[in-house]
C-alpha cells in the first residue's frame, strides 16, 4: 500500500548535547499509510530524533524533507501547521485546563473570534468516545490518572487532520484495553493514508501493528527492516547489539513457591486499611522474601493502595503492622524508618528532582534517612552510585549529568536505584518497568527475583500481567478501588484466569450501570 515516494525523510541527522552525541547520522523514511516502529534501548535517541523532526531541537547536521520539500521547523507550532502531529514521551498537557481544552487548545471552535465552549466540549466528548473513553470533559486534566491523561494526549493528536502522526511511547502507562483501542485507531488512520511513527518498548505491540521498523543504537542508525523479515529475537539483538538470553532465563523465576514464603515471618500486615474516596478497606500481608503482584484495570486503585503502605497518603481507617507490631505511619519519613520504600509510577512529578544530578537523585532517600547533619561521605556516594549505574546500566553513565537530561527510561532506573540503596525490607514498585527497554526490563525483573530471594518483601504493580505473573508469589487483584481477591501464583494460574477475575467486575459494572 505504501506508495513509492516517502511523505517524510530525515537524512544523516546529527544532534549533539554538551557531552553527549544523541544522534549521529540517522536516517528515517516515512511512507504514507504505514505504521513505522522506531526501536532502540533507553537513550538510543528515539525521542531526540522526534524532537529534532518537530523542531523542538535544532539539528547540528543532516536534512529533513516533507513531500520532497526541505523543511526545518522552528518549533512544534510550525510542525503541527505543516501536518505533523505528535504525542511526546511523558504526558505533555496542561494540568490546569479542562480535558476538553487540552484536546482543542490552539484550534478551538470559534465564532467571531470567541471560543465556543459548549461546541468544544461536545466535540471533545466525541473525540474521546472514538477512543472508547467517556468522562466529564469539563474536569481538570490534573485530577485524572496518568492513564487518562495519556489517552487525552493521544486524542488531541489523532483529532487533527495530520499527514504524519508521531507517537512516542503512547502505551507506556496504558493496559490491554486502552492499547486495543489505540491500535484500532492507528489502523483506521493508516488506512486513511496517514504515516504513523510508533515508539514503544513492547515488542508484541510492534509485531501486531508495525509495517516497518527502524532500529537505533546509541544514537546511530542500525537499519530499516520490513517487520515481516525481522524476527523478534533478531530485533532485540539489533537493539542491544548482543545476544540476549535474559528473556528465557527469566522463566526460571515463574511458579515461585508460595507456601515457603507464607511460612516465613510477615513483614507488613495491613488490616482493613483504607482511605475514604480513594481505596476501600483491604487486608494484605506481605512476608519476608515474598513478591506480591497487584493486578487491576487502570484506575482500579492500585497506586492509591500502595501509597497507603508508604504513608504518601494517610489512611483514615484500618491498621498497619510491621513485624507484627502495630505502627502508625504518618508520612514517608515514618515509612522509611520502618524500611519501607516506594517507587512512584509518576517519575517526573513524584520521583525525580530534574535539576539535580544523577548522583544526588540516587542518594537522596538515603541521605534523607540519615538526616542532613550526617552527609553520605563522597567516596561512599560515588561507589554506591557507580555500582547501581552499572547494575541498571544507566546511560549516559555520568553521575554528574542533570537527571532531566536523561532519557525517559534511564530516569526510571535512577528512581529505582534511589530506593535500592536504602536496602528496604519492603519495596513497593508502582509500574517500575514503564518506558524501560527489553534489556533493562529483564535486568529489573531479575533484580526483583534476586532481592526477594535475598529476603526482601516486594509489592509489584504493573499494567503487564505476564510480568506480574512471572515475578510474584501471589497476585492481589483490585477492582473499583477494592481488593477483590488474592490468587496464589501456582502452575494453573495464568493470564486468562487473572483477566477473568479482573474483568469479572466489568460485567457486573455494566449490570449496575444499566439499572
Amino acid at each position, binding site marked *: 500500500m505504501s506508495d513509492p515516494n516517502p511523505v517524510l525523510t530525515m537524512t544523516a541527522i546529527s544532534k549533539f548535547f554538551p557531552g553527549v552525541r544523541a544522534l549521529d547520522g540517522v536516517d528515517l523514511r516515512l511512507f504514507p499509510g504505514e505504521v513505522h516502529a522506531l526501536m532502540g534501548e533507553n537513550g538510543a535517541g528515539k525521542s531526540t530524533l522526534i524532537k529534532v523532526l518537530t523542531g523542538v531541537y535544532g539539528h547540528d547536521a543532516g536534512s529533513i524533507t516533507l513531500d520532497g520539500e526541505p523543511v526545518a521547523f522552528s518549533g512544534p507550532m510550525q510542525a503541527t501547521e505543516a501536518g505533523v502531529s505528535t504525542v511526546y514521551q511523558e504526558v505533555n498537557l496542561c494540568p490546569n485546563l479542562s480535558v476538553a481544552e487540552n484536546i482543542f487548545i*490552539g484550534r478551538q471552535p470559534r465564532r467571531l473570534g470567541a*471560543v465556543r465552549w459548549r461546541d468544544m466540549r461536545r466535540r471533545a466528548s466525541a473525540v474521546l468516545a472514538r477512543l472508547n473513553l467517556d*468522562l466529564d470533559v469539563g474536569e481538570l486534566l490534573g485530577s485524572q*490518572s496518568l492513564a487518562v491523561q495519556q489517552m487525552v494526549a493521544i486524542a488531541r493528536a489523532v483529532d487533527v487532520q495530520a499527514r504524519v502522526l508521531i507517537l512516542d511511547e503512547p502505551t507506556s502507562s496504558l493496559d490491554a484495553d486502552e492499547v486495543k483501542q489505540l491500535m484500532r485507531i492507528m489502523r483506521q488512520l493508516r488506512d486513511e493514508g496517514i504515516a504513523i511513527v510508533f515508539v514503544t518498548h513492547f515488542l508484541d505491540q510492534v509485531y501486531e501493528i508495525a509495517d516497518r521498523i527502524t532500529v537505533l543504537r546509541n544514537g546511530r542508525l542500525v537499519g530499516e527492516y520490513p517487520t515481516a523479515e525481522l524476527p523478534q529475537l533478531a530485533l532485540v539483538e539489533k537493539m542491544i547489539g548482543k545476544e540476549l538470553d535474559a528473556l528465557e532465563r527469566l522463566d526460571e523465576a515463574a511458579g515461585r513457591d508460595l507456601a515457603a514464603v507464607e511460612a516465613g515471618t510477615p513483614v507488613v500486615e495491613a488490616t482493613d486499611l483504607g482511605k475514604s474516596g480513594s481505596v476501600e478497606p483491604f487486608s494484605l500481608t506481605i512476608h519476608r522474601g515474598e513478591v506480591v503482584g497487584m493486578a487491576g484495570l*487502570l*484506575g482500579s486503585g492500585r497506586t492509591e493502595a500502595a501509597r497507603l503502605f508508604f504513608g504518601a497518603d494517610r489512611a483514615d481507617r484500618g491498621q498497619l503492622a510491621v513485624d507484627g507490631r502495630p505502627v502508625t505511619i504518618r508520612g514517608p519519613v515514618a515509612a522509611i524508618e520502618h524500611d519501607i520504600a516506594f517507587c512512584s509510577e509518576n517519575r517526573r512529578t513524584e520521583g525525580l528532582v530534574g535539576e539535580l544530578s544523577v548522583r544526588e537523585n540516587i542518594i537522596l532517600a538515603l541521605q534523607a534517612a540519615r538526616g542532613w547533619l550526617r552527609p553520605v561521605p563522597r567516596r561512599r556516594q560515588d561507589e554506591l552510585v557507580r555500582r547501581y549505574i552499572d547494575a541498571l546500566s544507566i546511560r549516559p553513565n555520568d553521575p554528574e549529568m542533570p537527571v532531566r537530561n536523561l532519557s525517559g527510561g534511564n530516569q526510571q532506573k535512577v528512581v529505582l536505584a534511589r530506593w535500592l540503596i536504602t536496602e528496604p525490607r519492603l519495596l513497593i514498585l508502582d509500574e517500575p518497568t514503564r518506558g524501560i527497554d527489553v534489556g533493562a526490563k529483564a535486568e529489573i525483573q531479575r533484580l526483583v527475583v534476586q532481592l526477594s530471594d535475598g529476603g526482601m518483601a516486594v509489592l509489584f504493580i504493573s499494567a503487564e500481567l505476564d510480568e506480574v505473573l512471572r515475578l510474584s508469589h501471589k497476585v492481589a487483584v483490585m477492582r473499583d478501588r477494592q481488593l477483590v481477591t488474592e490468587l496464589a501464583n501456582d502452575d494453573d494460574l495464568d493470564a486468562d484466569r487473572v483477566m477473568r477475575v479482573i474483568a469479572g467486575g466489568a460485567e457486573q459494572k455494566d449490570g449496575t450501570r444499566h439499572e
Partner: protein
Amino acid sequence: MSTSQLAERLNRTTRWRLPRRQLPVLVSLALLLVMYGIGVSQYQAFSNIQVVFNVFIDNGFLLVVAVGMTFVILTGGIDLSVGSVVAMTAMVSAALLRDGLPPALVLLIALLIGPTLGFVMGCIIHFFEIQPFIVTLAGMFFARGLCTWISSSSIPITDGFWTSAAQERIRIGDNFLTVGVLITVVVVAVAAYTLAYTRLGRNVYAIGGNPQSALLMGLPVGRTRIAVYTISGLCSAIGGILLSFYTLSGAPLIAVGMELDAIAAVVIGGTLLTGGAGYVLGTMLGVLVLGVIQTLITFDGTLNSWWTKIVIGGLLFAFIVLQRLLGFRKKSFSTR
C-alpha cells in the same frame, strides 16, 4: 469497557471538585462583604452608597494595573515595572500638555509608551530567557528614572479636556461616579472576555499551567509571553492616564510601590503566582479588599502612623488565612 468504567468512577470521585475552581473567588467575595458589614456596623457614614463608589473612584487606576498584572501572573511571570510606568505615563502627559501639545496627541503618545516598554521587556524575557523579575525590575528603575529626568517636581495639568474628564461627575441619585470608573469597568470587562473567550486568553492559562507542554502542544508561547507584558504595559499606561485624571498632575514620585499593591490584589483575588489559575473578577475583589481596608482605617481615624501599617498587615493576614481555611487550596497537579 474499562476506561468508561474508569471515567464513570472518575466522574463520581471528582464531580465534587468542580466548585473548587471558583471557590477562591467566592470566598474572597464573602469575606469582602463581611468586612464591609463590619464597616457599616462600626461607622454610620460608612453605609452611604458614595462610600462604595469612592472605593471604585479611588482605586480605579490600581484595578486597571492589577488587571494587566493578572495576565502576566497567569503566565507564571511577574511585572514590577507597573508602578513606575503609571507614574511615567502621568508625567509624560503632564509635561507634553504643559508644552501645549493637543490633548488627543498627548493621549496617543502616553498610551503608546507603556506598551512599547512592555513589549521590549517581553522580548528580552522571551528571546534571552532572562527572569521576568529582574527584567521588569530594570524596567521599573528605567521608568522611574525617566520621571525624575523629565522633572524633579510635580507638573500640574490645566488642559481643558483633562480637567473636564477629571471633574465630570456622572450622577446617580445624589451620589456620583467619575469617568475614570467607567473606563475601569470597560477595561475589566474586556480583560475578562479576553481571558475567557479568546485563544490568546486560553494560551495565557496554558503557558501558566506548564510552559514546556504548551510549547510541545504547538502553542505560540513566545508570542503570548510578549503579548502579556505588552498588555500589562498598556494597562499601566491606561492606569497612568486615569491617575493623571485623578490628580490632574504628574508627579515623579507618585505610585511608588504600586506594583506590590497590584500583586497583592491579584494574589488575594485567588490567582496563583505560579500561574495557570485565576480570574480577573478575583483581581477586582482583591483590589476592593485593599480599598475597603484603607477606607476602614480612614473612617476609624484614631490610628497613628505605625498602627496604621500594623493594622493593614493584620487585616491582610486575617483575610488571607480565612480565605485559606475556608478551603482555598493551592492545586497540585499530577503532571507538574
